[in-house]
């Protein structure tokens, strides 16, 4: 953690004096922090008037004016902060700062007047007895690192962004406030993403040793909301640069001032002897406000800024030992205060000296107050949390990484300006990305699926892996399927396509004739448990639906739907029987037909765009059971859908799906897939299994997996099942059914997984493929995952090569590259791997 104290303005290579020892610099304060909850908030922030407070923001006794509302942007940022946090940490994460009155936003950025109010509101009665003079211990410099740390990371950002800006401006308070939109956006948005982007940035990607990539990123990527709503640009904070005027105004305040800190002296002493606790551990559970407060308090200590580079070194022992201990932690104790605030009383020379010292401290406070807005604090908190859970803090430490970039090793020195630019660019690209980069808007339905997959990935990663094996062992299910269901090696066409190829005259397949006439959906559902049940009907009863018939049925459905919609506007009770009847779901449900015209009419309707357009409207008026029935029908008849039948590149000479069907497929993803996604949320675990089983039994899974819609449907079902499984409320019987279902699916796909990649994907937007692979790998065991990786190895490397080939100086290519790698990593992360354009590494957790 020594880099907390680094000074970015210093030249890169420091002597021995630059190695800060945490033991030496830590003041032990963290031991006293009550991390568990907000127990000390009131004392710290003066939330309640009666607690044994040491200071009071409310300025109840002071004559100071109420703080001006200079921080409305902070308030504006609060909501998104919390959204963001809950995204990151899951909904269960408590948000203590929500209830904290101080966190409401008004006081976070201290204005001049606020500082005054603080100074004047402090109760003078208690401090003198509590703070006898003490020798100044050396462990005093841990915390001030907080302050330079902010500088350590901020200036390179802005330096990169505003190259023309004179460097000294960065150090000035108010600088960030004057940069209207940037400070509010970037710090809050970058965590978790920027580090992931760094490797993709060649400029400093080469600067960083490979092992230094922050490995936690891939965990976070799936958790990022793909589209963060644009942030309100924060308003500038106007007052900060007034600090020089602070001094006179303080002197006019008549109220005595006491210590700002809330930490009791006894515990402070104890802290001196306590072995060092990692800084992050102290800070992590505390609220953003606490951190900010601590930071600003610490930075207000009478430490000469020029000494920061040598903090922790032995070079200034004298100076430190001269100082009374309490000066370090209690800036405004009585000895200081007497000098200034009891001016009407006696003012000894000693007091004057102290007053001067005090003056200096106040200036320091002012200098750093208001630097961090809520998003900054949020960022710091999150970063510190991540430090707790890592084994290699340097590696995962953003600041350390940035420090390395800013201060490269001598043999790697490049153009510093360039490096700064690259950081800033990565930063901005990321925010741009989440603000709805062009690649994110593409496909709403797919995006939703992506979210579901990502959630499934997250849930699965949180689940302990072992239980799976244990349970399986207990049930005696180790491997299933491949024995009784040998692989089909060659059959790639769906039955419907084969029918088309074989020409209509062929009647030799007696088996199909017998097996399938008109299965009732009830029986179709039974088929989940007993696929042998079939009803033989006289083949004369099979109807053939011509195009006109289908169009008629479809128009009838639409008319009924519109009738019901208009009825539903008048009354809550509508009769949907007519509508249901008109769907003709239960007619000729068998997927195995000799003639495409014999396929169930509703399935045939789904080949027409106007049917797809009404699907979601339709589902609104159907019961869960009815929708499940429809889903069952569709799963069994997937191969009869045009988007599947004609949607596989494998059936075309040039390995390209004709544009006519591409359009239909597009419509499908926007309508039907979306509606299915929604309804699948209502399905129970065994129903999902049932749908999958039906799908597997009635279709050539391998063929279906070569179509976009087929793959999307598989992904939807699998990821939903994974999510339910992640909830952990599944019975053992269901689980064993699930694993046998998965095995069957996997057996059907095995050895042909690489075929799911369309060969002519010029756009390289194949995220749905990687989503599917991620979901598939999620549900599988280690051996499954090995097989998958083995089969798609070429594709993995080809994506990496594609990414590498893209010149990321072009902003569009940069997006493309990130997109490629993000898609790939969605899959790799499931197996604990992560890739950049150069290599694949173990994901370090």
């Amino acid at each position, binding site marked *: 953690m020594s880099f907390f104290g680094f000074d970015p303005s210093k030249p890169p290579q420091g002597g021995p004096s630059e190695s800060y020892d945490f033991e030496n610099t830590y003041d032990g304060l963290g031991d006293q922090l009550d991390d568990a909850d907000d127990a000390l908030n009131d004392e710290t922030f003066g939330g309640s008037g009666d607690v044994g407070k040491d200071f009071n923001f409310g300025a109840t006794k002071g004559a100071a004016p109420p703080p001006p509302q200079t921080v409305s942007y902070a308030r504006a940022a609060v909501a998104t902060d919390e959204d963001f946090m809950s995204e990151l940490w899951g909904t269960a994460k408590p948000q203590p700062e929500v209830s904290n009155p101080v966190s409401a936003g008004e006081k976070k950025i201290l204005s001049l007047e606020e500082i005054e109010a603080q100074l004047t509101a402090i109760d003078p009665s208690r401090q003198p007895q509590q703070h006898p003079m003490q020798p100044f211990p050396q462990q005093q410099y841990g915390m001030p690192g907080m302050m330079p740390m902010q500088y350590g990371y901020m200036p390179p950002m802005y330096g990169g962004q505003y190259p023309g800006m004179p460097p000294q401006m960065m150090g000035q308070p108010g600088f960030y406030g004057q940069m209207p939109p940037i400070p509010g956006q970037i710090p809050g948005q970058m965590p978790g993403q920027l580090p992931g982007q760094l490797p993709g940035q060649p400029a400093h990607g080469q600067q960083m040793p490979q092992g230094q990539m922050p490995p936690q990123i891939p965990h976070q990527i799936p958790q990022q909301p793909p589209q963060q709503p644009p942030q309100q640009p924060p308003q500038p904070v106007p007052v900060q640069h007034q600090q020089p005027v602070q001094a006179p105004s303080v002197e006019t305040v008549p109220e005595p001032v006491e210590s700002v800190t809330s930490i009791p002296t006894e515990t402070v002493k104890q802290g001196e002897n306590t072995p060092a606790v990692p800084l992050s551990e102290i800070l992590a559970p505390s609220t953003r406000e606490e951190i900010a407060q601590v930071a600003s308090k610490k930075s207000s200590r009478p430490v000469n800024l020029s000494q920061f580079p040598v903090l922790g070194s032995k070079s200034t022992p004298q100076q430190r030992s001269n100082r009374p201990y309490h000066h370090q932690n209690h800036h405004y104790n009585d000895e200081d205060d007497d000098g200034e605030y009891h001016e009407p009383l006696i003012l000894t020379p000693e007091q004057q000296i102290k007053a001067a010292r005090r003056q200096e401290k106040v200036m320091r406070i002012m200098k750093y107050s208001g630097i961090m807005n809520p998003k900054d604090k949020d960022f710091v908190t999150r970063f510190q949390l991540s430090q707790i859970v890592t084994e290699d803090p340097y590696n995962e430490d953003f600041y350390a990484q940035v420090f390395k970039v800013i201060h490269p090793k001598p043999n790697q020195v490049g153009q510093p300006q360039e490096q700064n630019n690259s950081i800033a660019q990565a930063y901005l690209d990321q925010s741009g990305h989440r603000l709805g980069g062009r690649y994110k808007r593409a496909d709403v339905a797919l995006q939703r699926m992506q979210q579901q997959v990502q959630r499934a990935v997250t849930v699965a990663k949180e689940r302990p892996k072992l239980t799976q094996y244990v349970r399986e062992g207990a049930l005696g299910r180790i491997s299933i399927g491949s024995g009784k269901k040998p692989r089909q090696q060659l059959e790639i066409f769906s039955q419907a396509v084969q029918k088309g190829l074989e020409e209509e005259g062929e009647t030799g397949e007696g088996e199909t004739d017998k097996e399938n006439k008109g299965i009732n959906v009830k029986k179709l559902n039974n088929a989940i448990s007993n696929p042998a049940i079939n009803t033989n009907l006289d083949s004369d009863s099979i*109807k*053939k*639906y*011509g*195009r*006109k*018939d289908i*169009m*008629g*049925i*479809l*128009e009838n459905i*639409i008319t009924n739907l519109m009738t019901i919609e208009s009825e539903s506007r008048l009354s809550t009770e509508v009769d949907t029987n007519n509508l249901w009847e008109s769907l003709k779901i239960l007619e000729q449900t068998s997927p195995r037909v000799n003639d495409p*015209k014999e396929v169930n*009419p509703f399935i045939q309707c789904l080949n*027409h*765009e*106007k049917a797809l*357009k009404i699907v979601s409207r339709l589902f609104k008026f159907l019961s869960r059971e009815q929708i499940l029935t429809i889903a069952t029908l569709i799963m069994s008849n997937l191969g009869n859908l045009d988007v599947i039948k004609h949607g596989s590149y494998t059936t075309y000479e040039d390995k390209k799906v004709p544009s006519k069907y591409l359009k239909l497929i597009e419509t499908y993803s926007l309508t039907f897939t979306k509606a299915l996604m929604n309804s699948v949320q209502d399905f129970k675990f065994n129903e999902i299994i049932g749908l999958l089983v039906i799908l597997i039994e009635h279709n050539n899974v391998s063929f279906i997996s070569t179509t976009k819609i087929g793959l999307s449907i598989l992904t939807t079902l699998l990821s939903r099942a994974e999510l339910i499984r992640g909830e952990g409320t599944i019975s053992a019987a269901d689980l064993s059914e699930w694993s046998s279902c998965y095995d069957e699916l996997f057996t059907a796909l095995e050895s042909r997984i690489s075929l799911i990649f369309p060969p002519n994907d010029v756009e390289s937007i194949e995220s749905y493929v990687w989503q599917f692979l991620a979901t598939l790998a999620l549900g599988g065991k280690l051996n499954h995952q090995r097989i998958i990786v083995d089969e798609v190895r070429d594709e993995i490397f080809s994506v990496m090569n594609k990414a590498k080939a893209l010149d990321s100086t072009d902003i569009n290519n940069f997006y493309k590259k990130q997109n490629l790698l993000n898609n790939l990593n969605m899959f790799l992360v499931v197996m604990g791997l992560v890739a950049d354009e150069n290599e694949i590494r173990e994901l370090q957790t």
Partner: protein
Amino acid sequence: MSSVQADKQTEEPLDLIRYQLDETVLVKLRGAREMKGKLQGYDSHCNMVLSDAKEYIYNETGEPIVKDCEMVFIRGDSVILISPIS
């Protein structure tokens, strides 16, 4: 198109037009013209509204003149024939 009709009952010619709602149709018009477009609406006089339409005007020289029209109303009395385009 020899299909066993599912419901043969009360089907009348205008139903064919109804079925084509929101689908592309070819309309043959008097004066050696044709129109292709998505059928948005119609009435019993065969007045029609087509969207994303293309008008083909034929003459003796062979190649028709093609005109694009985003939305067009066709008065029924000039209609000769209507046919779905799949």
